[in-house]
């Protein structure tokens, strides 16, 4: 919110510097996002009295001698048509800064520093300035819009700084107002806070006015009482449309509002001053002089002041006359009842509308205004009455019209009186954990106009109606401390709290262990969005009925690429690898621990299953299927389980380089090489491999921490075997057969595979190292021979394996 210091000063005497005011506002909850002096770019511009002024022949220039008081008298060359001897104009001295303008003399093109110059051969020691060159407009200073010199008042003393004369020494504060203080979304509301913070009296704006205007019929009906708790309409006669006076236009301009005409400016002025949106209807255009506040009919149309047409639904609240909508309630007036130069009678509206409805309509229709913004922030009913009085006062003050006795106030009976609240001071202070001297308590609540009375521990306050946010003793604690100062809070460390057990759950411990294990194995942890794109599912070439396609859609996504809750981590992992290659990272290992979202039903009727999931991606020339498998084995190891692998098919993975991962009899994931056609789609040339493991399915493993198995008492025995088997046989089949043949086998490890000239075609040689661990006695040679023979026998039968000769 833009707050001109000069406007604030109308209600409260501010005897602190702008910096101090910023500090005070900040400490009581109003952050000043930015502040600046209106004339921040203007310096060394003084009142110049033109002593002599002679036209230079053959040019548009005048050669002037200009008296600048204590600064001296200077020869100035001036091209403006209104320069004349005896005139007082702003004189930019040598070294002054003013705005440079384009050829049109209107468009500002940055700040320039004035230097000695020569114009058509004549020396000039400064520059006489136009309003534009000082950053002024007609609204900010009378005459500043003229395309020539800005004329200063007759009583301006030569040599004096022009800034105070032109109001350039004013300050503009951009204050951010928190959502709980809609009462401060206006200059007067903020002035109340400034007065309380500075301990200064508050001057209320004048509301008095006569009611001697001509009367006319007017009727107000509020049909949608739920959306409009209060509607005040007031008939104003003898309206004479014209420009608002300069002081009002200046204030509006400083607050960032364009002046339009007296009546419209009054409504904008009241909005800015009191935070109450108002509207003025051109009376004769209200059919049957009847204002009806109602929901729009389905398909009903309205054209707003900016000539945009809207088709409405019953969700939209309108102000209608007997026949048609004449305004989008709280958002914008209708073109059909717009104030025109010929308007002679108006109806002012000051109403409270339901915040949510205005906000939703404004969003749904894509139409907004200062008024709808204010209603969305919240307008308390309190301000409707005050605003109407104020508008009528200003109308009279400006001579813009005459208030009549025709005043209609339709309300639901809400009180606008102060509420009495009685609380225990001890409780108020208990929230803060400090004591505040009683005199400070009284002073602070008095400054806030809460009329405090303290009797023992009982604090009684009267909450003004504009403070709807104050509901209980905690709110009073906040009022107290924000005015007393948060620096008074004494940091303590839960001296009254009980000792509690804390720490990570088994799941949290397991997931952390997993992350650390993968990082230790050279993988970097990444994090991707929880939502993805329908195109991600297409990238994986998933069939229409694939379970991954049953993803939860976001109703209002930012864009389609972020529109589904992810059901698999694979696509973002694949894209991350592709992105890395594109950026010149030629290989690496990435993992992500995140959630996939599996709905029980769509649309959602219950919380979906949020499953902890791991994805791992490895890419680059140094990686292959087995480096990825090394990482998945780390996962098994870290969760104290065993994984088994069997060939599988995935639409996005290599048909002959893909495995399902099983743990304790269940499929928990998959891994494989990215299909070449998908890699090509992503402009990926490097080989890429991806694994995805459902950690939720492994949650039984989370509490495992391992336990000690006693070391063997007897020496282990090791034997190596090389078998010749059919090429189709998997390592796992042979391994399983070996393990099954003898209970003392504690480890079987493949150490060589050979296919080639030395074995028959269609066959391969596989060499295993087998460890036998005795439990209760040392093996005798014959016993071991027996084990070996059993292995050979079993493998011949089960796997057709023969010992390589």
């Amino acid at each position, binding site marked *: 919110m833009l707050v001109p210091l000069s406007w604030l000063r109308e209600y409260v005497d501010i005897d602190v510097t702008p910096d101090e005011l910023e500090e005070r506002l900040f400490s009581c*909850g109003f952050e000043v996002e930015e502040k600046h002096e209106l004339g921040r770019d203007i310096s060394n511009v003084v009142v110049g009295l033109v002593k002599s002024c002679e036209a230079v022949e053959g040019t548009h220039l005048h050669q002037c001698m200009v008296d600048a008081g204590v600064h001296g008298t200077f020869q100035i060359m001036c091209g403006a048509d209104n320069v004349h001897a005896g005139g007082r104009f702003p004189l930019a001295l040598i070294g002054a800064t003013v705005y440079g303008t384009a050829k049109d003399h209107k468009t500002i093109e940055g700040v320039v520093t004035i230097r000695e110059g020569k114009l058509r051969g004549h020396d000039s020691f400064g520059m006489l300035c136009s309003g534009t060159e000082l950053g002024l407009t007609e609204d900010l200073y009378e005459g500043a819009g003229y395309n020539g010199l800005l004329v200063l008042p007759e009583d301006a003393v030569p040599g004096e700084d022009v800034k105070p004369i032109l109001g350039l020494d004013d300050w503009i504060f951009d204050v951010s107002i928190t*959502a*709980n*203080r*809609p009462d401060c979304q206006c200059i007067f509301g903020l002035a109340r806070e400034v007065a309380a913070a500075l301990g200064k009296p508050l001057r209320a704006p004048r509301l008095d006015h006569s009611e001697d205007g001509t009367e006319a019929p007017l009727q107000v009906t509020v049909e949608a009482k739920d959306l409009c708790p209060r509607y005040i309409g007031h008939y104003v006669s003898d309206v004479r449309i014209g420009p608002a006076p300069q002081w009002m236009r200046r204030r509006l301009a400083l607050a960032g509002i364009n002046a339009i005409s007296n009546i419209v400016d009054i409504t904008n002025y009241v909005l800015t001053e009191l935070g109450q949106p108002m509207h003025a209807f051109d009376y004769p255009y209200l059919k049957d002089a009847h204002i009806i506040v109602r929901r729009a009919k389905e398909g009903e149309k309205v054209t707003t002041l900016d000539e945009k047409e809207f088709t409405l639904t019953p969700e939209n609240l309108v102000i209608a006359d007997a026949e048609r909508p004449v305004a989008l309630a709280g958002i914008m007036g209708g073109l059909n009842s717009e104030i025109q130069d010929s308007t002679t009678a108006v109806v002012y509206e000051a109403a409270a509308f*339901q915040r949510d409805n205005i906000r939703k309509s404004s969003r749904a229709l894509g139409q907004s205004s200062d008024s709808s913004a204010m209603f*969305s*922030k919240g307008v308390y009913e309190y301000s409707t009455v005050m605003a109407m009085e104020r508008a009528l006062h200003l109308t009279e003050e400006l001579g813009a019209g005459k208030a009549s006795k025709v005043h209609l106030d339709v309300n639901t009976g809400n009180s606008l009186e102060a509420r009495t609240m009685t609380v225990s001071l001890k409780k108020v202070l*208990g*929230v*803060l*954990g400090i004591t505040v001297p009683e005199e400070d308590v009284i002073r602070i609540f008095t400054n806030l106009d809460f009329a405090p009375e303290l009797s023992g521990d009982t604090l009684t306050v009267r909450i003004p109606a504009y403070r709807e946010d104050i509901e*209980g003793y*905690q709110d009073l*604690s*906040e009022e107290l401390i*924000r005015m007393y100062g*948060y*620096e008074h*809070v*004494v*940091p*303590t*460390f*839960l001296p*009254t*709290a*009980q*000792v*509690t*057990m*804390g720490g990570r*759950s088994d799941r*949290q411990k397991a997931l*952390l262990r997993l992350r650390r294990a993968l*990082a230790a*194995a*050279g993988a*970097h*942890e*990444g*994090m*991707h969005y929880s939502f993805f794109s329908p195109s991600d599912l297409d990238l994986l070439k998933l069939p229409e009925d694939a379970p991954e396609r049953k993803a*939860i*859609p*976001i*109703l*209002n996504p*930012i864009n389609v690429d972020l529109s589904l809750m992810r059901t698999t981590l694979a696509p973002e992992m694949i894209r991350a690898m592709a992105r*890395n290659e594109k*950026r010149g*990272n030629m290989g690496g*290992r990435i993992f992500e621990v995140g959630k996939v*979202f599996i709905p029980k039903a769509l*649309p*959602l*009727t219950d*919380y*979906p299953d*949020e499953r902890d999931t791991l994805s791992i991606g490895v890419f680059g020339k140094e990686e292959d299927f087995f480096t990825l498998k090394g990482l998945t084995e780390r996962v098994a190891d870290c969760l104290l389980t065993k994984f088994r692998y069997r060939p599988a098919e995935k639409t996005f993975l290599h048909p002959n380089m893909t495995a399902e991962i099983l743990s304790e009899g269940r499929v928990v994931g998959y891994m494989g090489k990215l299909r070449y056609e998908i890699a090509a789609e992503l402009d990926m040339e490097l080989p890429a491999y991806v694994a995805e493991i459902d950690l939720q399915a492994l949650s039984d493993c989370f509490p495992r921490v391992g336990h000690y198995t006693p070391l063997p008492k007897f020496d282990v025995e090791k034997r190596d075997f090389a078998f010749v088997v059919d090429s189709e046989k998997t390592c796992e089949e042979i391994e399983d057969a070996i393990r099954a043949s003898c209970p003392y086998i504690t480890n079987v490890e493949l150490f060589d595979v050979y296919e080639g000239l030395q074995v028959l075609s269609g066959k391969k040689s596989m060499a295993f190292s087998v460890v036998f661990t005795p439990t209760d006695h040392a093996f005798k040679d014959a016993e071991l021979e027996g084990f070996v023979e059993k292995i050979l026998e079993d493998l011949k039968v089960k796997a057709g394996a023969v010992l390589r000769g």
Partner: protein
Amino acid sequence: MADNMDVKERILEVRKQVEDDLALLRDSKSVYEAKKKIMDGKTGVIGSMMREMGKIAKEQRAEFGRSVNELRDWAEKRFAELNEEFRKKELEARYESEKIDVTLPPKKIRAGSLHPVTLVTNELIDIFSSMGFEIYEGTEIEKDYYNFTALNIPADHPARDMQDTFYLSPEFLLRTQTSAGQIHVMERGKLPIKVISPGKVFRSDDDATHSPMFSQMEGLVVDKGITLGDLQGMLNRLVENVFGPGTTTRLRPSYFPFTEPSVEVDVSCFACHGKGCRLCKGTGWIEVLGAGVVNNKVLEGCGIDTELYSGIAFGVGIDRLAMLKYGYNNIKLLFESDLRVLGQVKE
């Protein structure tokens, strides 16, 4: 061998022969082999000498025995000397042959890394675990009730505008704040409560400084006699742990519907220690988190007796802490898995 062979002569002869053999040795391996051969009890030129005892005249036997033993001692000593000499040379040669250029590049040992958000989250969890806080993670998909209504943000509340929400259905949404977890914890009905709740949150904001997904951590204490002073004391510990000893906090008034009073918490700038720098935009303070005394309406909504209990809560942006701590200049860097970015920071 002649029966009358003089003992001395015999010993000298053997010794001469052995010395000639030893003179030919060039390395420790040949010393070992020569020793084995010469000292062999059956065939060795010295080792088998005692076998000749029978051929020695009785009166000379004692002298012979002593002389053989001396010879044996001499030979052992020579073998040891030679062995020592060659071993030493051989080691020197080996060391010399293994000379390397220590400035050659290393063999690649891949080091991975944890995500910066994981790192900061862990740090926060460690701090609060040590203070007896439980970790409650909650769900990313949440009911409107828990994300808003129960936190004193009814449907028409302007605070809903402060957070642009992704909806999945009229009832379900992507949580906009980890505060949603508070309610679940309080609804369990177990008091006192000390809990932190880290996790991902979502807001419909996507521009240079906003990501639609980011990470937050909520902290909540509900017990008897908990005050705003406790809040600041707790947060001082938090920031000292994250940003280093001596870091302090400043409270200033703010507004969150679920706390009253509500405060913004600034930390003293850890880069300039309050003098004012680019990081803190010259103010000496950096805004890092929001906090407050839990609004009684929220506690009461969860069935907690506010006559007895009070609470404090805070919420902190984990990504923001990570960015401040490690100096990332763009939040989007955290979600791109760029290997040049990951791994730059360590636990």
